[in-house]
């Protein structure tokens, strides 16, 4: 297992290096001299010279890249032009907000996606299965920012049940914090639930026709035990690994969800950075999410081993 893991990490390394090159290259896409953008409106020659020195823009591009990567490895992703804060500090501030949103969304997704997937697999070919699939397909097709807007219209404007926007830190007022996060995480959670339902359904279908399931039925075990203990447990491996891979969808969904519900998280940070032309922040976020995704991939591989003892022996 250790050998496999080391191999996986070694494969991930060139990918991470390539990602850093892509992210670095982004700033070369800027039309014209990036310095003029960085220096702002005044364009003081002294400031320009200082920035040129700081970003080593007089050096050849490979040297610039190495300097940038060197800094990034030390946790220095540059400084926000808007707030003058280090990018890493800004991200660290916003991260807990998005993590809370992510965790609550995943809870929603699991609560909806897994039971729906199990039921539609067990009742394959029936009306229930058909309805579950139509709902999942609709979930895949509905733009989740629209779903968010419609929910605000209904729940906040019409019924006045939940706040339409804002954020209360969990440590400050736990109840209020969960209340404000309820609608956003439901919106994001349903988007993930559709994917999760499809995964669960196909994993369950694969297991339900296995010999040991037939044996369990032949022994006269109750259908509940057969499905939950004998089938679902075995279907769990692909479900868990695929959940780890939903990371990308989760982050992308968070961008829109946070924008609609004005939640000051990671996603709001990237959108605000784009509008403030705060390019260091945009670069930092792309780099961190991409590396995060690779890390989740590794985690998924590891979980595969942990959950499936048969693989460990090989």
């Amino acid at each position, binding site marked *: 297992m250790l050998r496999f893991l080391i191999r996986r990490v070694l494969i991930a390394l*060139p*990918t*991470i290096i*390539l*990602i850093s090159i*892509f992210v670095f290259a*982004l*700033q070369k*896409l*800027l*039309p014209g001299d990036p310095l003029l953008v960085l220096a702002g409106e005044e364009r003081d020659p002294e400031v320009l010279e200082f920035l040129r020195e700081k970003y080593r823009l007089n050096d050849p591009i490979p040297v610039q890249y190495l300097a940038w990567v060197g800094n990034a490895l030390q946790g220095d992703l540059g400084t926000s032009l808007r707030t003058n804060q280090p990018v890493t500090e800004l991200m660290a501030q916003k991260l807990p907000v998005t993590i809370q949103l992510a965790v609550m969304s995943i809870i929603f997704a699991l609560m909806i996606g897994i039971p729906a997937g199990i039921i539609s697999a067990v009742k*394959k*070919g*029936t*009306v229930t*299965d*058909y309805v579950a*699939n*139509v709902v999942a*397909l*609709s979930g*895949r*097709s*509905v*733009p989740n*920012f*629209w*779903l968010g*807007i*419609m929910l*605000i*219209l209904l729940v906040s*404007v019409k019924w006045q049940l939940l706040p339409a926007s804002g954020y209360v830190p969990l440590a400050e007022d736990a109840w209020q914090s969960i209340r404000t996060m309820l609608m956003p995480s439901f919106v994001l959670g349903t988007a993930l639930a559709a994917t999760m339902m499809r995964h669960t359904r196909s994993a369950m279908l694969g297991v339900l026709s296995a010999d040991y399931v037939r044996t369990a039925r032949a022994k006269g075990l109750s259908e509940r035990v057969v499905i939950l203990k004998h089938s679902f447990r075995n279907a769990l491996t692909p479900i868990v690994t695929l959940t780890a891979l939903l*990371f*990308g*969808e989760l*982050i*992308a969904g968070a*961008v*829109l969800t946070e*924008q*609609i519900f004005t939640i000051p998280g990671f996603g709001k940070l*990237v*959108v605000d*950075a*784009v*509008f403030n032309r705060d*390019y260091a922040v*945009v*670069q930092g*976020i*792309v780099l961190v*999410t*991409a*590396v995060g*995704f*690779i890390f989740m*991939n590794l985690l998924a591989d590891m979980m595969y081993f942990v959950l499936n003892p048969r693989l460990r022996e090989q």
Partner: protein
Amino acid sequence: MTDATTSEIAPDPVLTAKPENRVWKKFRRHYSALLGGILVAFFVLIALAAPLLPIPDPAATDWGAVRKPPSWTHWMGTDEIGRDVMARMIWGAQASLLAGVVSVGIAVIAGVPLGLIAGYFGGWTDAVISRCTEALLAAPFLILAIALAAFLGPSLTNAMIAIGISATPIFIRLTRGQVINIKSEDYVDSARAIGLPTHRILSRYILPNVLPPILVQATLTIATAIIAEASLSFLGLGQQPPAPSWGSMLNTAKNFLNQAPWMAMWPGLSIFLVVLGFNLLGDGLRDALDPREH
């Protein structure tokens, strides 16, 4: 979901038909795919006919009719500066579909040849292309598109380029996998044995055989691309005002939920329907083109 319409025990009449009929019959039998086709055709027709339809100018403001609910003069109501929502919806369909088709076109044109090369030649070429693909896939689709749109500058064209680049790795990976599957088939071996040049083998023998799954993926990716364009426009990174786009209409509508909820209804509903259409069509095509299923 399509299983519900298929009887599992009765002899399958489809299997006894001629191959070319079989694909069409299987496809037609799936009402959901047909529904998808109708939805897509409807929006394509509207988008194409936009200049011919007797609708008001989508950019014409009317300060005497600001945020009017749907009525006989304005079927879908008016927006915050008195523009006709239906006219903007119809012209918005053009932007949406164009974005979907063009960005997927970019992804296919860039991704398929790279996938063919990676899969056919293997070795170092494959390693380099595959690592680049993985690196691009690691950044979440929308984040990558946002970053690209941000650095390229906000416009519909740049949004399409950004979405296209973000979707390219999907096609590289798919094509590569397909090529690896078929490149050791006998007919490819014999083409090589009679000394055909590599580009002929790739274009005449391999490409046609990897095309069906690419077609399916392209249809499904158009759905994703339309949502991505709407998302970018919603964030202000796509179609720029005053040109109409469903995403930017939703962005404005969000500020008038209390007074003019219809402004948010139509664009979202249209995105949903057109994306649903492409998803249904893609799923149907997959069932129809995959000889192994059922």
